[in-house]
């Protein structure tokens, strides 16, 4: 059912009934397929894409590159387990290339995030170095534009 996944990925708020019509399936089939996707851990959750800049809420996002000395027993998984348990951490991935872990962190201010890196991340055993990059402006996230929609200029017959 990769068509269903694509639909959900585009807009998770469509109702089962709407998706059933679009995919030529019954509502029950759709509900069962989604339940299975969730049970199998393929669909991990449903969240809106929020443009926080427009809410007036102060929110700073940073991407932090970490260089890690992997532990003998657990490799990168041990330290990753610690980092991902922090509430401030929005995302965490193991990377190829010049650094090892990439952490996405949300905070209320630049200082907030910087302190988190200095006090929580840097002192962790195995962390060799960090580089913090603050997000200045979001243009697009998960395929959705964060800029204002372009006007529909089509006029064809």
């Amino acid at each position: 059912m990769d068509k269903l996944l694509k639909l959900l990925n585009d807009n998770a708020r469509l109702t089962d009934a709407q998706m059933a019509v679009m995919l030529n399936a019954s509502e029950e089939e759709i509900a069962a397929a989604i339940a299975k996707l969730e049970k199998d851990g393929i669909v991990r959750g449903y969240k809106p894409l929020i443009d926080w800049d427009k809410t007036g809420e102060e929110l700073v996002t940073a991407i932090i590159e970490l260089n890690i000395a992997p532990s003998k027993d657990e490799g990168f998984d041990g330290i990753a387990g610690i980092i991902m348990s922090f509430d401030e951490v929005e995302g965490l991935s193991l990377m190829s290339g010049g650094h090892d872990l990439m952490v996405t962190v949300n905070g209320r201010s630049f200082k907030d995030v910087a302190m988190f890196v200095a006090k929580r991340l840097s002192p962790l055993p195995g962390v060799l170095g960090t580089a913090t990059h603050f997000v200045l402006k979001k243009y697009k996230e998960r395929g959705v534009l964060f800029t204002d929609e372009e006007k529909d200029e089509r006029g064809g017959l």
Partner: protein
Amino acid sequence: MNYEKLMNGTLADLKPSGIRKFFDIAAEMEDVISLSVGEPDFSTPWHIRQEGIHTLEKGRTWYSPNAGFLALREAISGYVSRHSGVTYDPKSEVLVTVGGSEAIDLCLRALITPGDEVLIPEPAFVCYDPLTRMAGGVPVPLVTKAEDAFRLRADVVAAAITPKTKLLVLPYPNNPTGAIMPREELEALAEVLRGTDIMVLSDEIYGELTYGREHVSFAAIEGMQERTILVSGFSKAFAMTGWRLGYACGPAPMMKMLIKLHQFALMCAPTTAQYAAIEAMNNGDEDVEKMRGEYDMRRRYIVDELNKMGLTCFEPEGAFYVFPSIQSTGMTSEEFCERLLKEKHVAVVPGNAFGDSGEGFIRISYCYSIKHITEAIRRMREFLEENGLCK
């Protein structure tokens, strides 16, 4: 100067396109949700655009041969044979035109001698009737009906044939109805035409966009290739409307005439577009498949919603339009569209813009995102409810 007196009388008497009028009203309004355009919401696939850009960078900005680059004609010939099973000689039987519309105009002008009758199914796209008149021909409308799924019935054609009949226009998959012509019906039509000298202009511009079953080209029906001019193009399937590129394929002696006319009027089709089109023909099948999948989901959704709100529509199997009946509202097509636009700021096209037999219907395009369609549907339901017309 008395311009009215100067003008060609046939041209002056032509009715302007009824689609335009609603576009103009809608353009004046804020927050209009439109379901009226007849072109894809997708941009031309990137690899196709890139070919155009690349040749511009290289400075390849000259004329091409009159009939189009041979490489493109070969690519078209290959594409048509791969998809329709009909073979055309790229050197003598393929012409690259400025959109499918030029191919239609050429075909009509090449064939019509004043007084000739041209059979045109109705409702149909707005160009056949006026272009026939401009060529001196007499349009003979063949009414198709919702109860026949807007297919052209062979007996209707048979009944309309006179000694003056020169040409049958066959515009399927159809704009505005979304109707298709399955093989059996084409066979029946072929049976009527066999033994006559009637030519067929098969406008298959939406040929790639059918849902559930494959499009069958009229030229692929036994014995029909010799009497068929197959017209198609890049606009709809490859999302290339603004490039203005189409093609015609047909018997060599016919094509020779079309090319003669094309060479005097247009010289050649735009060359940047031609380069890009070669890429589309050779490597574009996957893009078409993807867009077709998207259209199909929207089509199912919109048909279901319309039927639920009491605007019954037969299931359109092609193009990207649905053509629901609004007869249950007691309004005329124009009245319905005007009020829907004024009260709910939703723009759709009245069916009578496509001929008198389109009265009682509206054309809805689904070349829009699901989000956009959902909002339009919501407003349409409100419109019906507020006027006490909902089922």
